């Protein structure tokens, strides 16, 4: 197998998920109850048999570091397989916080050299899909390409400014590439996965850094020039590919999951996750009480349900007391929902306490289609006191002890979470 070293870009700041990414990087976000977004890429790399993986981290990496560890869940803790978390670092030279994706790679070219890579597989951390990259690597080798871009179809309804667009010529040659254009130049986008010859990448980045003005963005400083140079190919990914650009995408994705609609399903793809995370693997199976009512929902281990859960996704360890009603919601780990509390169209981070009889969101909104105006977002470790009504559209900050005064302080305008 051609020696390919992978580098995952997981350092970027992202504030499109409201308080859910105020304390963690996007790729560490819980998804489908008991997974994290980065699990997809890590599982793919494990299945491909990549022996060296570097994970570039910067923005709020704590959860990610805990989750990835030494890569054990993805078979990477071994004498000949390694996963390395790579934060920015001080050196004697001018090393700095990563100034962009290209800069992050440049500052870690030692990793590329040390692993004796012939090719570098650069991946974005936070896309959801299942894939074995072997065929792409095979094609890259056969064509003797300097660069192979993994492409997919441009998904409907997204702004072109979110993607890089590729144009195919003959025989998988990519003739044109433009990053985040004002308008779509084709029906084909980059998945953010780039396979580049190691010596080409090294030479290019080193040459670049001799210049005065550098664009530190990888697609701009490396991909676009390589495509112009004429030896860049594309490999088409035909499977389901999910891009969660914001909170709304996140919610819509989970609604498709619970309806069993076509989407990227981590269960079906056998996505591997860290089972030591809050003792996921040892938690007892979810318990459904005598008077519980659960409909069209995904319930993770450690949950104890005595109340009602409808069209919702529950992460591990959620306790739903008798009389409580959870509808159209997504709740992260170890929240407590006490007697008769009602949560409607709520997205809640971990460890929140909803005391008895509190009401989050608007009961009348239950059911029906998703509309962003219906959503209320609760930050990690928030505590909602007894009997309080948190109006639809509020965003409860991390750690907040919500009382009547705080609610009164929220203005009439609905703070859209996304």
């Amino acid at each position, binding site marked *: 197998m051609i020696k390919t070293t992978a580098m995952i870009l997981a350092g970027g700041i992202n504030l499109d998920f409201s308080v859910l990414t105020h304390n963690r990087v996007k790729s560490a976000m819980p998804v489908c109850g008991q997974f994290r977004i980065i699990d997809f890429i890590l599982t793919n790399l494990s299945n491909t048999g990549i022996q060296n993986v570097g994970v570039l981290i910067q923005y709020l990496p704590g959860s990610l570091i805990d989750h990835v560890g030494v890569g054990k869940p993805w078979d990477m803790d071994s004498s000949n397989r390694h996963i390395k978390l790579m934060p920015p670092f001080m050196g004697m030279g001018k090393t700095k916080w990563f100034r962009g994706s290209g800069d992050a790679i440049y500052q870690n070219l030692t990793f590329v050299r040390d692993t004796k890579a012939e090719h570098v597989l650069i991946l974005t951390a936070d896309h959801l899909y299942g894939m074995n990259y072997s065929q792409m690597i095979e094609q890259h080798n056969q064509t003797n390409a300097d660069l192979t871009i993994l492409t997919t179809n441009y998904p409907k309804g997204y702004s072109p400014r979110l993607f890089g667009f590729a144009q195919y010529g003959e025989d998988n040659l990519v003739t044109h590439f433009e990053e985040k254009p004002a308008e779509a130049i084709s029906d084909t986008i980059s998945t953010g996965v780039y396979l580049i010859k190691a010596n080409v990448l090294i030479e290019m980045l080193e040459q670049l850094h001799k210049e005065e003005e550098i664009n530190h963005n990888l697609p701009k400083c490396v991909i676009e020039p390589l495509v112009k140079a004429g030896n860049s190919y594309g490999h088409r990914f035909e499977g389901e590919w999910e891009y969660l650009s914001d909170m709304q995408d996140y919610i819509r994705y989970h609604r498709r999951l619970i309806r069993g609609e076509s989407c990227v399903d981590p*269960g079906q793809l056998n996505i591997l996750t860290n089972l030591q995370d809050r003792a996921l693997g040892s938690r007892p*199976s979810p318990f459904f009480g005598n008077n519980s009512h659960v409909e069209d929902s995904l319930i993770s281990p450690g949950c104890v349900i005595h109340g009602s859960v409808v069209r919702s996704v529950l992460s591990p360890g959620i306790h739903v007391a008798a009389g409580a009603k959870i509808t159209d919601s997504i709740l992260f780990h170890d929240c407590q929902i006490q007697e008769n509390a009602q949560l409607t169209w709520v997205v809640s981070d971990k460890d929140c306490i909803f005391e008895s009889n509190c009401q989050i969101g608007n009961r009348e909104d239950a059911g029906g289609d998703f509309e962003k105006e219906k959503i209320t977002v609760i930050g990690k470790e928030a505590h909602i006191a007894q009997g309080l009504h948190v109006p639809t559209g509020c965003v409860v900050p991390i750690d907040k002890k919500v009382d009547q005064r705080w609610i009164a302080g929220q203005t009439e305008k609905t703070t859209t979470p996304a």
Partner: protein
Amino acid sequence: MAQVVAMILAGGQGSRLSILSEQRAKPAVPFGSNYRIIDFAMTNVMRADIRHMGIMTQYRPFSLNDHIGMGEAWGFSGRNHMAKVLPPYIGGKNSDWYLGTADAIHQNMWFADLFNAEMVLILSGDHIYSMNYSEIFKFHLQNDADVTMMTQQVPWEEAGRFGVIKYDKKGRIEAFIEKPKGEPPSNQINLGIYVFRASALKRLLLEDAEDPNSSHDFGGNIFPKMIKTMRCYAQEFPQYWRDVGTLQSFWEANMECVNPQSGLDLNKWKVFTNSLNSPAEFCRPTHITGSGRVQNSIVGKGSKIQGQVINSVLFGGVQVDKGAIVRDSVLMDGVHVGQGAQVTRMISDKWVHIGANSIIGSDETDNPVNEQFPDYLNTGLTLAGKRSHFPDNIKVGSNCLIYPKVSVQQQSRSTIPHGTTLSGNDNG
């Protein structure tokens, strides 16, 4: 704190569990939707911060060895923590298949000696309970005991089935009688949990090994010898404890997982298990969908429920199709209950297929007992072995035993009468 080494006896077959323990040792039998029986003892050892543990295996140990691994799941990793599986071995002067509980320990005292342990904690791998062993060590040391054993009260009429221990208010043992006939001296029974002074244990085992008339059993041989001359103490353990040695007690204990009053509280006990061998396809949330309704049950990860599940324990990856009703049952990994099927009081091993509109088991408890194994299967349960297959529309009575991999053919009969056993050869 004095050194303790834990030794877990996990070599038994548990023959009364029938096909559940035929291809795997009893401690490896799946339990409570997410665990194996040995997880309870292993977790208790972990909680007491005991760093060295030997697990004596013998009967069909593959599942067990695979499950234990190096003990990592229970924190036994690195230089200072060690969990070792100890099988019987050829080569030692007295080595042989284990002749009894005392012999198993005797043949592995070399392991306990490695750590210069002052105390040896001897446990069975077969029991369901959550116990703080640290409290017992304190009691043992305070009394300068040679042995401390744990007991539990049972109804007087039951006591005769067990090893019975009589002890005074201070815990000093006055009598130990294995399965007493007539009026038992006490209704405190032996739980099979012993803390020994290491030097005393060693001496007793050596003496016992020399005795050709001994059956090398703690209850039958070692304790009766010790009571008169050594410092033997006992302590009561009033909380939930079960030896799931029979099909009925196995079923009852699983049912107690879904009874909040039973004292068996999986959420409170926080039992650790090795989840790494669990199939990857199970590792996803439980999906209740369509007309799925679940009442008073636990349903394992990766399961998909579109029918009714009442008062049952479902393990990982169980599929209950639309219109099916599962009641009072224990269904292990990967079981598929087809549309409209009715399953009652069933214990099913892994990967069993139950055809659409079939009727398995019943809630009557007084039907004819199993003809071939009347002592094992006689309380109205129906038992299906791993990978057995039930076609659509079949009706299977109570106390039936279907062997692993058996495909129940419909052919001449669409009803399998109460008490039938279907093994590989006679079928349909």
